[in-house]
Every structure is written in structure tokens, then in C-alpha cells.
């Protein structure tokens, strides 16, 4: 099995507050990992640090992605190398056409890989296919990026971007938050359709609910910036039943 991502003893802070305290995580190709934990445990910080957000300062440890030191790369280089972050709060970019951003992103990656840029016709064809897969209306392409989108539309748009960019490692940060059940199902179906043996997916989530639809291979519980317990999907169910305090107590005992 190929190791895609190896996080070792990662420590990071934002605005003077240390959030990650020696986090270890190994993710292999083809796997789906769920990272769960209470608010403030460091779930989103982990996602942002892997993506390279400059507000977060790495204090120690390492992140190795496909044998490379990921922390050395600029955010856009990480993206072109196949790291994708589905944002918890996708930002609106008024006036910029959704299709335009998508095409620019796809071409940035293709150039990076020494491929020719995709032409407009081919792009539209592929985009329409992927949108059908996600149950998205074609009019999405002509709207401003996330401009006036509902919560569900924004999350679906994230999954569309993932579908177009075909990342090797996708981190979906609370993709389930703020979704009604239909939207959740649509997003989960999209993610499931994108599962394959070469691709790893990290689901950052607060609730077990998402895992009813996307079945993880591994479940980790994060607390105070560390993974305190790992297991298979049954761990998520147990958490649902007993709450986070149960693991936290067990860990400190």
C-alpha cells in the first residue's frame, strides 16, 4: 500500500495559541479517514496547515506527502501536486465566473504536470458530466463563485471542484455542516463516486451523521491537538453513543 500522507509530531499555532500538540497520522492511498473531535480540538487547524494557510505557524514536526516535505511548498504548489481542501466556509468571489475559476484551476494543475491546457469545449463537456453526477444544475457554471449560493450549494460546489481537480488527497472540512438531509446525501454520493484506490480522503467532521453515508476505513478522535484514539467505523458509532468525554477520560486515565 502506498503511503500518501505522513504527519509526524505536528505542532502548530494561530495568533499565539498552540492548537496542534504533536499530532501523528498516516494516510494510505485508497483510504477514507474520518477525523472527529469536539470543537476546538484542532480538526480545522490540521486541515488548514496541510493546505498551507499562512495564518497558521508550524512550530515543529513534519508533514510528508508522496515523499515530499509538504510544508516547504506554497499553497498553490500543494494544490497542483494533488492536495485538495474542501472548505468549511467557502468564500464568495463576486463577479468571477464559477466556470472561469474552475477552468483556471484545472489548467494550473495541467501546466504543472506538463500537460496541454484543456480547451473550452472539452472543459464544458467534463464539467457537465461531473455536475450531473452531483445533481447540480448547469446554470451553476455561469454564476459568480459561491455568490449568493445557499449553504448546500456551496458545499456541492466544493465537491464539484474536487471532481474536476481529481486530487490524490482530499480533505473535506466539515462538509456536512449546515446541510439538510437531501443536500447531505447528494454531497455524500458525490464523494463516494470519487473514491478510488489511488485517492485518499480525510473527512473532518463533528458528527457521526456523515459517516452513515460515507463509510470510513479509519476513525480518529482528536482532542487538544492530538489524536487520542483511532479505530474503525465502529468507533464513530461508539462516540455517538457515549460522547467525546468518554474517550477524553479514557485517554487521560
Amino acid at each position, binding site marked *: 500500500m502506498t503511503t500518501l500522507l505522513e504527519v509526524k509530531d505536528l505542532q502548530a499555532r494561530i495568533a499565539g495559541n498552540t492548537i496542534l500538540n504533536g499530532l501523528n497520522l498516516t494516510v494510505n492511498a485508497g483510504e477514507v479517514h474520518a477525523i472527529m473531535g469536539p470543537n476546538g480540538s484542532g480538526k480545522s487547524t490540521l486541515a488548514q496547515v496541510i493546505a498551507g494557510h499562512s495564518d497558521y505557524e508550524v512550530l515543529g514536526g513534519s508533514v510528508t506527502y508522496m515523499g515530499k516535505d509538504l510544508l516547504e511548498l506554497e*499553497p498553490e504548489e500543494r494544490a497542483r501536486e494533488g492536495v485538495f481542501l474542501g472548505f468549511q466556509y467557502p468564500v464568495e468571489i463576486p463577479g468571477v465566473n464559477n466556470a472561469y475559476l474552475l477552468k483556471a484551476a484545472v489548467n494550473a494543475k495541467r501546466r504543472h504536470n506538463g500537460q496541454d491546457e484543456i480547451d473550452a469545449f472539452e472543459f464544458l463537456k467534463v464539467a457537465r458530466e461531473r455536475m450531473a453526477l452531483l445533481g447540480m444544475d448547469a446554470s451553476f457554471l455561469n454564476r459568480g463563485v459561491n455568490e449568493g449560493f445557499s449553504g448546500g450549494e456551496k458545499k456541492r460546489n466544493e465537491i464539484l471542484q474536487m471532481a474536476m481537480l481529481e486530487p490524490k488527497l482530499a480533505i473535506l472540512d466539515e462538509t456536512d455542516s449546515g446541510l439538510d438531509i437531501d443536500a447531505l446525501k447528494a454531497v455524500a454520493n458525490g464523494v463516494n463516486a470519487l473514491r478510488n484506490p489511488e485517492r485518499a480522503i480525510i473527512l473532518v467532521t463533528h458528527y457521526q451523521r456523515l459517516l452513515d453515508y460515507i463509510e470510513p476505513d479509519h476513525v480518529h478522535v482528536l482532542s487538544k491537538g492530538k489524536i487520542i484514539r483511532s479505530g474503525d467505523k465502529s468507533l464513530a458509532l461508539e462516540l455517538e453513543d457515549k460522547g467525546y468525554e468518554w474517550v477524553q477520560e479514557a485517554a487521560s486515565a
Partner: protein
Amino acid sequence: MSTDPNNIESLVNRRYEHGFITDIESDSLPPGLNEDVIRAISAKKNEPAFMLEWRLKAYKHWLTLTEPEWAHLHYPQIDFQDISYFSAPKSDKDRPKSLDEVDPKLLETYDKLGIPLHERARLAGVAVDAVFDSVSVATTFKEKLNDAGVIFCPFSEAVIEHPELVKKYLGSVVPHRDNYYAALNSAVFSDGSFVYIPKGVRCPMELSTYFRINAANTGQFERTLIIADEGSHVSYLEGCTAPMRDENQLHAAVVELVALKDAEIKYSTVQNWYPGDENGKGGIYNFVTKRGDCRGDNSKISWTQVETGSAITWKYPSCILRGNNSVGEFYSVAVTNNMQQADTGTKMIHIGRNTSSTIVSKGISAGRAQQSYRGLVRVMPQASGARNHTQCDSLLIGKECGAHTFPYMEIKNPSARIEHEATTSKISADQLFYCRQRGISEEDAVNMIVNGFCKEVFKELPMEFAVEAQALLNVSLEGAVG
């Protein structure tokens, strides 16, 4: 107004840096302004008596005026006696002999803008005999225009060849009494363009095409007059996306448009004069008066401007909606970066019945630049059924720039419908990170966001120019982030 002595010195020195070298050519006048200078300008141009009288009247009026200081602009006092008001075009021996002698940085910019090779030489001021092609192309255009009855010539030629038209329309939209710079321009204008479109004629080409190939250095006091006779139509494009070599620091142009009954004039500008360096040193001062008169019923005048250059921009292309059902439009993108300052906007004066106007202003500020939108919508008592929609958006990049809005409305007819929308936004770090996480570089992300912001205005530009204007914005904002 700041009076830093160093600034004044550099301003003054700059004028001599390239302009007057040891062998002052007989065709140049020494710095200074008085009646004799104006007589000399008029004589050198072989102007008829009416033109000289007009100039002198303007000059006498100018003497009674003081420089306006109401604009939100700061610059050292200009010494008008330190400027030469007539200098013949540079002779070929002073110009670069070929592109090899041109500043490589300038050439790099042309490259980024996608300026065709044959145009680069002319833009960079390479000696005329090294610029091929243009003469024959221009002749072809000229024939086509002649066939349509369109008059399109240098202003100085129009004064001699078509004095009746010049007499009738010159100063009829922007009288010499209009303002300080208009009075100065009226007294000393160097040259410019004259356009007359006869009744019912649709000008067979964008006048831009011809202009871009043929325009010589028209000097710092440009005068343009465009008359669209009844039922005619013309689209005129002024300026160029490429940075133009120019040694004059002060520019004070006047543009007058007259649209008679059922006529339409579309006037597009791309202004990219030297903006000065990142500390604000050097750079063109651009004080322009542009006004269109929708004189006839159902006439329409549309201004579109993309302003990226100059250290100081003072410019308010306006429409007088005199004819019933006449339409005025103003679409503007203004970019200020580094230390640039712009005070720009429009005036829409509703006089006729059922007149309507649209204002879309997009201002982008980066670096330490300051930008102001200044607009006036005036509805006169007799202008029943007037409508105006104003949209005024500002985009800030970085923390040290500023955007200001001064909208004035004077509504004297109760039936008027006036709408004003204004927004101010910033390119946020979140937006940039979002784009970068998708693999798009920061610079490309800024360009994408800026172009999205300006879309409504760019779609008003002639097609090929819209593409160049986008590239121009990208170049203008280089280094604005990070």
C-alpha cells in the same frame, strides 16, 4: 497642497531633462506664456484670424482664473510660466534608431500587453523611417472614410480646411470660460482630432483602428471635436493600452462631442500615461475636460474609460442631455496603484424630457493610492420623466490605499427617478487563499478578481480592446499584493 521644494525641483528639472537640449530647434518656443506666445503658436499653424481671436479671448479669461483646489488631490504647485507651449516634434536624430536602443523594460511591458511588433516601434518613439507599414495602411483607411463622407483629420487641418464647422462647434460644449484648464487649453492647444460624420452616415469603421496606427504625438494640450450629424453613428477610441513615451508632465486636454438628432457617439478611452515610480516621482498630471452634448432628440452619447496611468488624474467625462429622449452613459474603470491619485467621475445634466443616464464606476486602489469618485446628477425643472441609475463600486487591495465617493444630486423635477448604489469591498486574504488552494497563483487570483469586478465596464469596450484592457489592468496591478 504640498509644497515640498524637492518635488517642485524634480518637476521643473524633468521638463528639461529631454526637451530642450543645446541646439534648440527654431520651431520651439522658450518656456513662458503671454500674448506673444499665443500669437506665435497661431502663426506657426497658419491659423485664420478667427482662431487667433478665439485663443486670445480664452487667454485673457484664463488670466482672471485661479487653479481649482476642490479636487481630492495633492501635488506641488504647477508653474505655468515654466512650460513651453509649443515645440515641434522631435527630429529623428534624437530618437532611438531601432528597438534595440529602447529601454528593455518598456519592451517587456509591450510583450505582456500583446502589442503587435510593428506598433511597438512607433509607441516607443523610434525614428519614423524605421516604422514601416503604417503609411500605406493609413491611406487605405482614409479612402474608405472619404467615400463615406466622414471627415477625420488633425484639428489644425480642420481649422484650415473646414473653418465653418470649427467656427460653429468649437467651444459650443466646453466654452473657454468653463474652467481653468479648459481656458488654458483653449488658449494654447497644440493639436488633436476633428471628426465630422454627415447626416445618416454610420461611420464604416471604429475610428480607433486608424487612430492607433496613425496618431502622432499630439502634445500636451490636445483638442478634440467630434460632431455626429443627424442620424449618424460613430465609435471613437482614444489612447492606447501601451505606455506612451512622453516628455510633457502636464496634460490638459479638451474633448467636445456634439450629437444631433438621432445621432450616437461612443467614445472609449484607454489612458496609460506614465504614473510615476512607486514613490510617486515623476508621472503625468492629467487635467482633462470631456463633455458631450446630446443636442438633438433621441441622441445618445456613451463614454467608456479605462484609466490606469498618470500620477494625477482629474477627469469627468460628462453628458448634457438637452434633446428629448436623449441618453447619456458613463462606464469607468480607474486603477490607482503605488502613489497615484485620481479624482474622476461624471456629470449628467438632464434638460430634455424623458432623458436617461447610466453611470457605472469601478474604482480599484492599491498601494498607497488615493481615488475619488465625484459625480453629479442634475435634473432641471423642465426635465420631466428623467431617469438615472448610478452604480459606484470601489475595490481596495492592501491596507494603505483609500477610496472616496462624492456623489452630488440636484433634482428639480418631481417626476425624476434616481437610483444610486455604492459598494466598497476588499480583496480578502480568504479569497486569495481559496484561489491558491485551487492551484491558482496569487497574482492570477488578484487579476481574476479584479477583472470580475470590472466586467460590466469591459463589455462596453470594443472587443479587441477589452482583451488588451484586461491585460493592462494585470500589468498595472503587478506587485500590488504580497
